[in-house]
């Protein structure tokens, strides 16, 4: 089962729409509520990152009987130093992002905490791709 959602950079009013739709789908599929919460929190953090930092992005959702895989791919400035970006408290967010209640340098670390697996790759001036996987049976 596959879905995809477009995310506009800078559009804070709409940020969270994709994560909300994904939550509805997972509920309909009767996925364990703990797994739903971890999935949508991680996805929402990623969606807010796209809105906060990128020009545009797409969230790809792929669900099978074993796992949920969510890939958040954006066109944007990219991340020069991924290790630094993964550090709690490190942020390059604008004051506008901070006014929305984000930009404290907690998004990527919280995605990692909630996901069973996470991979991140980025190219400066091109964009960033974050993939998270949640296993449906053996909770890790």
């Amino acid at each position, binding site marked *: 089962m596959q879905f995809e959602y477009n995310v506009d950079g800078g559009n*804070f*009013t709409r*940020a*969270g729409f994709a*994560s*909300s739709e994904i*939550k509805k789908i997972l509920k309909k599929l009767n996925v364990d*509520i703990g797994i739903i*919460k971890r999935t*949508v*929190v991680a996805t*929402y*953090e990623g969606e*807010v990152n796209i809105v906060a930092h990128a020009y545009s992005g797409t969230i790809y959702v792929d669900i099978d009987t074993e796992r949920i895989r969510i890939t958040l791919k954006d066109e944007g400035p990219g991340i020069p130093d991924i290790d630094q970006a993964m550090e709690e408290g490190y942020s390059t967010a604008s004051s506008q992002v901070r006014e*929305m*209640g*984000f*930009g*404290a340098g*907690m*998004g990527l670390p*919280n995605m990692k*905490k909630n996901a069973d697996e996470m991979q991140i790759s980025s190219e400066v001036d091109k964009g960033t791709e974050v993939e998270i996987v949640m296993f449906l049976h053996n909770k890790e």
Partner: protein
Amino acid sequence: MKVKEIARLLDARIVCGQEREDYSIDVAFASDLMSDVLTLKNDNVLLITGLANMQTIRTAEMSDIQCVVFARNKRVTPEMTTLAEDNDLVVLECRYSVFKTCGLLYQAGVEPIF
């Protein structure tokens, strides 16, 4: 503590979710930083905040938080109310500061998360 008791204690207005006034919260958390809210693992959390925007409602939705008190006289916009209603959230507006709101709830026995 039930929503109706929270509303009475804080002299707060229930903006939406009136039909859920018997919903009961277990613990409370106060923050204007949604990133901190998104790290919570508890169930039946009451969120107290002075940050009134769409992302506050979205954060509550993603975190399975069903009751939000907007303190410091912050107003909930019609757009926020619609999104809250779509997600069966109970939303209250309260004129007290976050400090006083938390103080009254704590005094009445509402537990913190940590």
